[in-house]
């Protein structure tokens, strides 16, 4: 057992899989000797060498296309897209190529690859380097989408993603790289498609993802202390496959649902969860499901502005309190 950072967990997760399987290769911009723009892959080049850990030109389409061709013919590539915003310049592979190949070929073509990318706000980088774009990927049949919130989940879900036979988009949160957590020694392997109940409660269910998870936990603690409200907090972790069982069971117990999303308002993943709960658990609900999101705007750069647009523990707390009439 040791306390490690979310950043070091990325390296450890990749290293664990590269050591296990010689077919795992890693490519991206500045990922090898420099160890990545966020220093999340420092040491991989030294450990595995330049044949398995390869720097590429600034060519996002070539990076994802090459990962796909390698995956189709037997390797298990991990490709880095430096900032998740840049998915927009290689979206063809995410939207049209990875997820359609198996289906269109009637099951012939395989695409077992991982795209890992730094997602989310908090760094004051402005509207093109701060977005949470996991919902861009969630809407595409054929992809799997995960976004861990803690070091142990980073390692376990990275291992699961690398071993998964389908294309997985792996969102790391920039503002979590410095966060720390206890991680056991030895191999860690988690399961895609499983949410985690991080805090058990009876008064309401708060569903969150990535950076919103620690914020939801903080809000829940203050709601307990200040208002005696007992919140259940669920870390979704995996948007596809989606663990609806855990969410529906929680709502059946608490009778209230809140989602906390970093996405801008329209078509965020919370809307899908609210829709599922409305369809399948309407009569479990004692009040309307509530989405707590970033407003539908491009993200501003300045710290005081960025801080007010993202859901904060304070906003989560006030929203829950008001909705429960406490």
């Amino acid at each position: 057992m040791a306390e490690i950072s979310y950043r070091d967990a990325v390296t450890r997760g990749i290293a664990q899989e590269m050591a296990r399987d010689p077919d795992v290769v890693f490519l991206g911009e500045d990922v090898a000797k420099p160890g990545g723009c966020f220093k999340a892959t420092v040491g991989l080049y030294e450990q595995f060498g330049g044949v398995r850990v390869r720097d590429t030109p600034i060519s996002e389409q070539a990076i994802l296309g090459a990962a796909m061709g390698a995956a189709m013919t037997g390797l298990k590539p991990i490709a880095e897209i430096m900032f998740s915003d840049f998915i927009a310049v290689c979206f063809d592979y995410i939207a049209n190529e990875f997820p359609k190949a198996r289906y269109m070929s009637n099951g012939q073509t395989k695409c077992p690859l991982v795209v890992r990318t730094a997602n989310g706000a908090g760094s004051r980088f402005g509207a093109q380097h701060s977005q949470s774009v996991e919902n861009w990927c969630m809407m595409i049949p054929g992809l799997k989408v995960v976004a861990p919130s803690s070091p142990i989940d980073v390692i376990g879900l990275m291992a699961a993603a690398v071993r998964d036979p389908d294309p997985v988009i792996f969102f790391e949160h920039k503002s979590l790289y410095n966060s720390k957590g206890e991680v056991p020694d030895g191999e860690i392997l988690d399961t895609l498609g499983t949410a985690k109940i991080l805090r058990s409660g009876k008064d309401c269910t708060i569903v969150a993802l990535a950076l919103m998870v620690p914020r939801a936990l903080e809000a829940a603690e203050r709601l307990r202390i200040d208002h005696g409200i007992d919140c259940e907090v669920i870390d979704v972790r995996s948007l596809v496959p989606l663990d609806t069982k855990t969410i529906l069971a929680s709502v059946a117990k608490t009778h209230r649902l809140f989602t906390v999303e970093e996405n801008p308002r329209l078509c965020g993943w919370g809307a899908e969860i609210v829709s599922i709960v409305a369809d399948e658990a309407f009569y479990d609900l004692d009040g309307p499901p509530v989405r707590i999101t970033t407003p539908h705007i491009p993200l501003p750069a300045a710290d005081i502005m960025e801080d007010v647009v993202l859901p904060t523990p304070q906003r989560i707390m006030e929203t829950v309190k008001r909705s429960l009439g406490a």
Partner: protein
Amino acid sequence: MSTAKDRAPGPAGSGLNDDIGEEKRLALYRSQVRLRDSEQRAFDLFLQNLVKGTSHLSLGQEAIAAGFAEAMVKGDLSFCTYRGHAHTLARGVPVEKVLGELMQKDNGLMRGKGGSMHLTSEEHGVMGSYAIIGAHLPIACGAAWRAQYRGDKDVSVCFFGDGTTNIGAFHEALNFAAVWKLPVVFVCENNLYMEYTPIKDVIPIPQPAADRASAYGLERILIDGNDADVVYRTAQKAFARARAGEGPSLIECLTYRHSGHSRADPAKYRPEGELEEWKKHDPVKIYRERLKQFGVSDAQIAEIDASVRKEVDDATEACKAAPSPPLDIITTDVYADGGWAWRN
């Protein structure tokens, strides 16, 4: 456009026993006739309303598909575009499988789930047909990277049109392949048109691919794409270079499509006489004449023609008789577990 000199059969005094040889020449001829007849049949079936959706024919461009495929060996990989029937057939995929997919029948290559633009047959090395312009160039790089990484000797061959040289993925892939020295061969089939716009109207240089090769440190290669011997020899050279670890090649093949861009296109935008001029350089005609020149008998040629015609006729009948695909495959193979479940 090809000239008589370009189309000379080989070294002076050569014949069927030159570097290409009789057996390969007959295979090149058979392949071209097979592609021609299959594509013509696809067009006829479209007129009878039996080919659904869209289709993009390679009529007039057969020498490229045949020449490259005949130079490939088992294990080499083809990456094609939506204009991919010919490349798929040339790797040995049965005509019935291709026509069945065009007719959206259960006997089709992908049982109707892909359609004409996405023909794939991995067992024949056909690693997919891609309908987003340029998308498959980086993908071919990835397959070549795997070969380099594992020390495999196969070559990835990627076919695309002249119009594709203006999209970003083309330039990303060329640079990437050159820097990583990947065993990939890029084949530009310059048929002079994108969909309806002449390529010369949208490039600042005469040749869309060849004139860009130097930007990636590659040799300028521009060949007569209607002469299967020229194509075959060029392919062999590029494959040898790739297998020797010397990196990629970019080959521009001059050719012309005899039909419109897709089934809906009557190709009215072409100047008068252009098609007729190119039909004089029809690859199938050129090759038939060459075989005769080399002393192959009319009877032997007729025998090949007849056996190809029989394959295409039999395939057509089998496809007409085949059932539509069952609806229960709509939700299969979205994910590797065979299904489509996105939730528990």
